[in-house]
């Protein structure tokens, strides 16, 4: 066995990413690694590739105990990773990237450029890659960049290649090309670990599969023995740990209507509505286009076609400013980057979207601001010494409450929550859900994007599912994780029958 992982553990602060990671990969096989978002797949692979250190467990590499402290140590031992997001130097040539860090040297530290180009060209020729050694990497497509990473791995003499969702940004033809290459590598005795969500791919490329759930290996074995149904079952498990329950409200008037919204390449023909009193969940895998949808509705990215109605009026939202004016609020995925001015006081953050309300003729009414800040820190139970405290010093959950409170002050009615519970602890999560519930009770409507399906099941009245930029399903709030996963991960319309 080429690589064996036994009981790998990894914690990040208080969060357990891996509790029992097991995996065995043979030379010359394509081993699929599957699991939901956050199941621990990437962490496990980073440990193998030396990008992270395990806290516990054992790793055997070619039968010997191994522990790689950094990626170059792993690379020297023959392990290479082809990343989802390219880690190449964009301004350098294909050849220079293949040899980056291991340049052919001449005396006096001169780089032997012609030899590098020659060798790179030979490598490309040998594998029939559609590349030229002198091309600049920034001009390449995502597929081309992956080929460069593969070249790099081959040139290093790697015996194990890890692919992290390599086809997520590729066209069909490019995907086929990647498959051809992966198979050719296996034929030479190289082991491949392949992370993917796409069922149609699994059957084409995979030999064996390992499924992770909540940081644990729950299944490992030949792919042929499994039905799709069993695979989904392994991925999502049975038990749903309910921490919160809410009573649905009768939906009121329509607050948001999205009609045939398209923005290439992320969004295709999206249509749905939000009514007052509703929390509508939005499920999907990473990269399905959920964040892009929020950004489009909020006017950050312009849409190519389609219409948006807010409170019954058709609006053209060309900027967040116009969205805010129309009564839309976005609680972004990346709080620190786009939601909060961390260096400014809490009070400044709370009134940031509502300054016209706390000023007269352009002059601020600081006493009004103080009373608003006092009122909302109390209302949302924001734990802070005073509203003058810098927002960046609050805990994750309290920061999130500040971001939400900013929109309460503004009086928005359509709320787009993008991963509202990311990075906050369980207690604060419940508080965020309570705030969301009181919002819809006050007549607002919420679109809640979340990658944690169990959360959506607890909070949402309806659940929309996106896959590759399209809405693929609408499910009732009391659906199951299996159902969501079917629509989120697999193309229900074309490949389901073939696969089963």
């Amino acid at each position, binding site marked *: 066995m080429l690589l064996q992982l036994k009981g790998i553990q990894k914690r990040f602060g208080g969060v357990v990413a891996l509790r029992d990671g097991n995996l065995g990969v043979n030379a010359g096989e394509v081993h699929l690694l599957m699991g939901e978002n956050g199941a621990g797949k990437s962490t496990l692979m980073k440990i193998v590739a030396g990008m992270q250190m395990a806290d516990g467990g054992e790793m055997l590499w070619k039968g010997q105990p191994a522990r790689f402290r950094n990626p170059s140590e792993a690379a020297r031992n023959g392990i290479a990773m082809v990343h989802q997001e390219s880690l190449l130097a964009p301004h350098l040539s294909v050849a220079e990237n293949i040899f980056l860090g291991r340049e052919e040297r001449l005396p006096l530290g001169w780089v032997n450029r012609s030899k590098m180009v020659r060798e790179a060209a030979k490598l490309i020729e040998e594998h029939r890659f559609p590349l030229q050694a002198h091309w600049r990497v920034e001009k390449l497509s995502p597929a081309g960049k992956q080929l460069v990473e593969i070249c790099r791995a081959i040139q290093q003499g790697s015996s194990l290649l890890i692919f992290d969702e390599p086809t997520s940004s590729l066209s069909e033809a490019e995907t086929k090309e990647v498959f051809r290459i992966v198979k050719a590598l296996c034929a030479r005795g190289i082991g491949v670990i392949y992370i993917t969500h796409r069922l149609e791919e699994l059957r084409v490329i995979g030999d064996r599969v390992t499924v992770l759930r909540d940081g644990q290996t729950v299944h490992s074995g030949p792919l042929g023995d499994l039905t799709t149904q069993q695979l989904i079952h392994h991925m999502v498990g049975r038990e749903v740990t309910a921490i919160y329950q809410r009573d649905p409200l009768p939906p009121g008037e329509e607050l948001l209507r999205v009609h045939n919204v398209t923005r290439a390449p992320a969004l295709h023909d999206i249509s749905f509505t939000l009514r007052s009193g509703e929390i509508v969940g939005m499920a999907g895998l990473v990269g399905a286009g959920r964040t892009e949808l929020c950004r489009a509705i909020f006017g*950050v990215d312009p849409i190519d076609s389609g219409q948006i109605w807010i409170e019954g009026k058709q609006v053209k939202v060309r900027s*967040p400013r116009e969205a805010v004016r129309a009564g839309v609020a976005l609680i972004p995925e990346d709080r620190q980057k*786009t939601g909060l001015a*961390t*260096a400014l006081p809490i009070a400044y953050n709370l009134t940031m*979207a509502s300054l016209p309300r706390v000023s007269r003729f352009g002059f*601020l009414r*600081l006493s009004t601001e103080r009373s608003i800040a006092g009122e909302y820190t109390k209302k949302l139970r924001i734990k802070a010494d005073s509203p003058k405290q810098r927002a960046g010093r609050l805990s994750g959950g309290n920061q999130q409450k500040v971001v939400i409170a*900013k929109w309460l002050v503004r009086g928005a009615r359509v709320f787009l929550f993008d991963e509202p519970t990311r990075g906050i602890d369980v207690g604060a999560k419940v508080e965020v859900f309570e705030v969301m519930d009181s919002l819809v009770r006050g007549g607002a409507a919420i679109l809640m994007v979340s990658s944690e399906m169990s959360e959506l099941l607890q909070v949402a009245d309806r659940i929309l599912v996106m896959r590759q930029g399209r809405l693929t399903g609408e499910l009732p709030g009391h659906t199951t994780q299996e159902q969501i996963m079917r629509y989120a991960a697999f193309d229900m319309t074309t490949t389901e029958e073939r696969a089963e």
Partner: protein
Amino acid sequence: MIQRLLPFFTLIALFIILAIASPNFLTSTNLSSVVRQTAVINIMALGMTLIIISGGIDLSVGSILALGGLIGATAMEKKWGIPAGIAVGLLIGTACGFANGLMITSLRINPFIVTLGTMGIFRGLALIFSNGLPVHDIPPSFSYLGEGTLLGVPFVLWILLFCAVLMHILLEHTRLGRYAFSIGSNPDAAFYAGVPVRFDTIAVYSIAGLLTGLAGMIEASRLMTGQPTGGQGYELQAIAAVVIGGGSLRGGEGSVLGTLVGAFIMGLLSNGSDLLGTNPYWQQVIIGAVIILAVSVDELRKRRMSS
């Protein structure tokens, strides 16, 4: 808190040391000359404070000062009268700032690059406009602006105080000022909150341009010349004043009081070295060291606060 007040203590300590070390320091002639020397930089630095708080920078203010002063002086040479001449100077300064803001927001280029470009452009325009020659024929009474005295103190001190109070109110009590803090602290968050980022950025640079135009007229009045080559290196002194006073080039931080203190620290250092007969070349070394020291102390404070 103590570290935040460090610039104040430094200024007071410097003042006391100079008062003891040099008998000529605490004379009204010397003190008014310090005020007059510092006022030009100080007024520019007020505008720079606003820009730096909004997360920007303006390298072109030295050139704007020259262009505004020159064209204002030319207007007076052409017998437009003193008030009209001053108005022309202010207008030119505002227009230059407006142009900076417009380019930064519409071309979406880093303000450092834009104002590095306009630093050359405005300077070049001043030289073209004047054929490289200074303008001398200015009504004598214009000298009151820079050299006059009102109620026993230099007139420029009143102007400086007036501008400082206005800038303080702008920063702490108006929507525009608050938006400047928001944009400087986190431009994305401000944009997502519906802050009119583009409009405010242009306003910020225009206001700074207006103040620089005023500084240009004061400089012209003190020298009784419109100098196309004037104000070189002033931009760096203005930035230094803001930074010594606690402004952060990362944006979102800075205050009028801090900037005033920063500018006066530099003014006293240079005046003190003159009085004590320090080699003028050493002055530059000392001021440079003070900038680095002030900023490193401030960074230390922030790092301790965030941990």
